[in-house]
């Protein structure tokens, strides 16, 4: 099949001022289960292939087939990749949502519409392309079922021509999407071309938006947070995972299973150097990984909100008995079942103090896919070094969407397995007390079951114990142990990923945020400066417990807007309690409608608060 020249000829570009290049939001409205997902990914991928920065966010329903689904691609030469609720181009394939979809468009937006939906168009400020999709499909395939799939790639062809996307880049996209499925790839290319050609022949309107090859995304990669975290765990030497399916975390363990099966077999025997178990529920998955962590395997589980709740009791045991374990929480919107396919940061405060009684946990909070990789890797180190549960707090937005990223770096340092005494060590040191703070950092030595030494054994329990792990109900044993756990926590404070701060040096306004809000916050700062002459400093918290650097940031600013994606300002509450003397400076800016946070809503939130004084 010949590759089409895709550069729009000068005559085709809009007369006045030329089109807006590489800065737009494309929204595709379909139904789930209709096969549109692969077409949307091809579209995204083709942009990536052209070196154009683009991100894709999938807004899908919590069912399997037939409900409205939107895929939003943001193209931005400057690399702003956050959610943007402002649609420049709509591909409206869903009759059930077309009225709303059209209504929200900005004037001048491009619309790709099946011609039989034309009667829904009641505005005249849109650039509408009515496409005879049904006829075009029939040109390609006769089978109606197959036709339902093919229509999706047809709209990609139309979009491609309208925006000026390379056919080469598109075909690369098809090959990437249908790797190993030559027949499907061929059919898709054919349909793609057909849509493209139809558009070339019929789409005459001048367009405000166009795409051009660029260097901006050169050298970057495109990956989902769950893929990245799975890789991080594999390179971190994880050997055991137990999980129970739950959106949006399931794909993490599913990706991992694929990677591990390929890369983690013993070269000699071909046997697995790992185990991945789909447990019967989250009580079991956390129990299994705690059992394995105690036995000495690097272990993790991944889940989302409801699973976190179910894991509460066992996590308290791991905290108190000091068992290393990693728990990935790919957050979705709660409470309860909530909106299982919508993003949120609603578990931050919950995970931090999960379980009854006094416990506080370590949370690593990646702000981008690269950190998903790095923190997943690091979480295993921290869990074993500090013998405690470590939470990796991702979210649906980060975990399940393809994000652009700098390439990851191969971890250079050996993995850190913490204070484990072998039989030889025991011979050398002579004595062993499991819960004795030998080094004064609150972190004790442990031994693994199976260690062939008479002094190796100890008894692990969730009940009060002495330094030698003997059962004790004595007040001072209890209190000393609880105090040591705080000492340990304070040690950890200095060893978790430190915040990233950027000081504006021009005024007293700080912004604090974490996790997947980063992109939107960065962009919001840009607008605040540009539109409102408000220069802001920025502190991205990357872990709990916070340490001196976070405090310092707050201390340096009269007002710190704490931006988070939950209703109750959970991080702000933690910070106020940590820094009562600075509590009044911390002002919550919250976003909790299930859509990923966007720059505009941050700007509006801050400006509204700022104007209140």
């Amino acid at each position, binding site marked *: 099949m010949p590759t089409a020249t895709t550069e729009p000829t000068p005559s085709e570009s809009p007369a006045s001022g030329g089109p807006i290049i590489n800065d737009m939001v494309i929204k595709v409205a379909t139904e789930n289960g209709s096969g549109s997902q692969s077409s949307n990914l091809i579209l995204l991928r083709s942009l990536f292939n052209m070196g154009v920065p683009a991100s894709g966010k999938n807004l899908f329903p919590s069912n399997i087939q037939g409900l409205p689904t939107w895929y939003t691609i943001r193209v931005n030469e400057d690399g702003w990749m956050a959610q943007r609720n402002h649609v420049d181009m709509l591909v409206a394939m869903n009759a059930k949502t077309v009225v709303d979809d059209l209504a929200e468009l900005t004037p001048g937006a491009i619309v790709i519409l099946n011609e039989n939906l034309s009667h829904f168009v009641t505005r005249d400020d849109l650039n509408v392309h009515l496409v005879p999709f049904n006829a075009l499909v029939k040109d390609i395939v006769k089978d109606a079922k197959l036709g339902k799939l093919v229509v999706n790639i047809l709209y990609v062809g139309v979009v491609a021509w309208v925006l000026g996307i390379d056919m080469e880049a598109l075909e690369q996209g098809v090959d990437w999407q249908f790797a190993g499925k030559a027949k499907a790839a061929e059919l898709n290319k054919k349909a793609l071309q057909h849509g493209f050609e139809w558009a070339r022949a019929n789409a005459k309107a001048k367009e405000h938006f166009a795409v051009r090859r660029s260097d901006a995304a050169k050298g970057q*990669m*495109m990956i989902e947070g769950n*893929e990245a975290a799975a*890789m991080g765990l594999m*390179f*971190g*030497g994880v*050997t*055991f995972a*137990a999980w129970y399916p739950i959106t949006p975390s399931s794909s993490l363990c599913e990706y991992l299973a694929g*990677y591990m099966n390929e*890369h*983690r077999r*013993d070269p000699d025997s071909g*046997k*697995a*150097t790992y*185990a991945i*178990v789909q447990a019967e*529920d989250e*009580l*079991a998955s956390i*129990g*299994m*990984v*705690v*059992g*394995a*962590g*105690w*036995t*000495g*395997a*690097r272990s993790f589980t991944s889940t989302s909100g409801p699973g976190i709740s179910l894991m509460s009791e*066992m996590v308290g*045991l791991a905290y108190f008995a000091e068992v290393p374990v990693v728990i990935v929480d790919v957050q979705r919107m709660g409470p309860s079942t909530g909106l299982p396919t919508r993003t949120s940061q609603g578990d931050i405060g919950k995970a931090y103090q999960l379980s009854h009684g006094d416990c506080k946990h370590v949370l690593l909070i990646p702000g981008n896919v690269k950190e998903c990789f790095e923190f997943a890797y690091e979480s295993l180190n921290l869990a074993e070094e500090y013998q405690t549960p470590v939470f990796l707090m991702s979210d649906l937005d980060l975990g399940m969407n393809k994000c652009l990223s700098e*390439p*990851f770096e191969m*971890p250079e340092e*050996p*993995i850190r*397995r913490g204070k*484990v005494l072998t*039989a030889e060590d025991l011979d050398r040191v002579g004595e062993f007390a499991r819960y004795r703070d030998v080094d004064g950092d609150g972190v004790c030595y442990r*031994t*693994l*079951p*199976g*260690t*062939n*030494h*008479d002094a*190796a*054994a*100890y*008894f*692990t*329990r*969730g*009940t009060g114990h002495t330094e030698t792990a003997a059962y004790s109900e004595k007040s001072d044993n209890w209190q000393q142990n609880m105090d040591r756990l705080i000492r340990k926590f304070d040690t950890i404070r200095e060893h978790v990923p430190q915040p990233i701060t950027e000081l504006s040096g021009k005024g007293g306004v700080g912004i604090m945020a974490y996790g997947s809000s980063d992109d939107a916050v960065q962009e919001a700062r840009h607008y605040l400066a540009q539109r409102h002459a408000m220069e802001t400093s920025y502190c991205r918290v990357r872990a709990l417990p916070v340490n001196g650097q976070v405090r310092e940031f707050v201390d340096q600013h009269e007002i710190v807007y704490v931006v988070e994606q939950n209703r109750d300002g959970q991080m702000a509450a933690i910070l106020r309690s940590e820094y009562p003397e600075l509590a009044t400076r911390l002002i919550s800016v919250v976003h909790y409608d299930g859509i990923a946070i966007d720059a505009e809503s941050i700007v509006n939130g801050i400006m509204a608060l700022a104007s209140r004084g």
Partner: protein
Amino acid sequence: MTPSTASAEKQAPQKGPNKNRIGLTMQDYKGAASTLCAGCGHDAITSSIVKAFFEMDIPPHQVAKLSGIGCSSKTTNYFFNTSHGFNSVHGRMATIATGTAIANRNLVNIGVSGDGDTASIGLGNFSHMIRREVPMVYILENNGCYGLTKGQFSATADKGSHKKGGEVNSNTPIDCCALAIEMGCGFVARSFSGDPKQVRTLLKAALAHGGTALIDILSPCVTFNNHEGSTKSYSYAKAHEDPLHDISFIPNYEQIEVDYEAGAMQVVTLHDGSAITLRKLDLDYDATNRSSARKLLDAARDETLFYTGLLYYNDKSSTIQDNLDLVSEPLATLPESLVCPDRKVFDSLMDSFR
């Protein structure tokens, strides 16, 4: 950082006076002093465990002692001072055991649980552990009540049995042996703490089995469930125990030489080459037949009979570690070179995202 999992050879393997074949004395298998009530059935089982492991020459450092919460679950502290123990949370021992078995396949896992721990709160996880074929000896110290919380009925309390205060249980009991068979368990036995010889023999057979082995042991709670009207009291158990067979264990280093009339004895060879002989008593019972076991247990429940012995044995010996196709070394201590892929893998993966 790699704890040696060296075999028993490190200890002098000569059998001396009062020593077993790995040179240890019974004392080496003892644990902390029990804090249970004087006369508690659980303590008798602890003694049987000590003897069985001593006689089976199992190095304590290779044992992981696992439990949940309850008087029964505490007992793992009262044997094997030089084994690691994990007294976890109520009802979740089965999940801990699954993780432990996977993390280090060289460990001998022994779990002790109660009827509350297993049949009430732990029922689901217990069932799934069996289904997953986690190799371990699972001891259910069954007293029909919650000892540690002061004697409430548990899910194994027989319908119509009485509490100390007189209240009558109106719920159908759960028979964990029948359930285990339903879930595919290959070694299912029932015994009585007051029959230490049988308990010990079953324990040894369970250890030799190498797969998931359940031993449900009636273990009277002298404080809360040892009265008239209880079907889990010493006197009830003594009066009603009906052994299915006279059971003997023949270790794999001994010749299996048994003299018996045809039909009077069943010989069952176990995974590690040892064997048990089941000399028939009144009942003509075939312990390797699932339907016999089902029928027996149905009858036992309907009529509140108390059969003891090896209820069901099935020599399929796949384990979760096989199912997961694990390397033969413990996952826990694999060297970094085996668990962290190299730069080549990294680069190729990176490429796939470009």
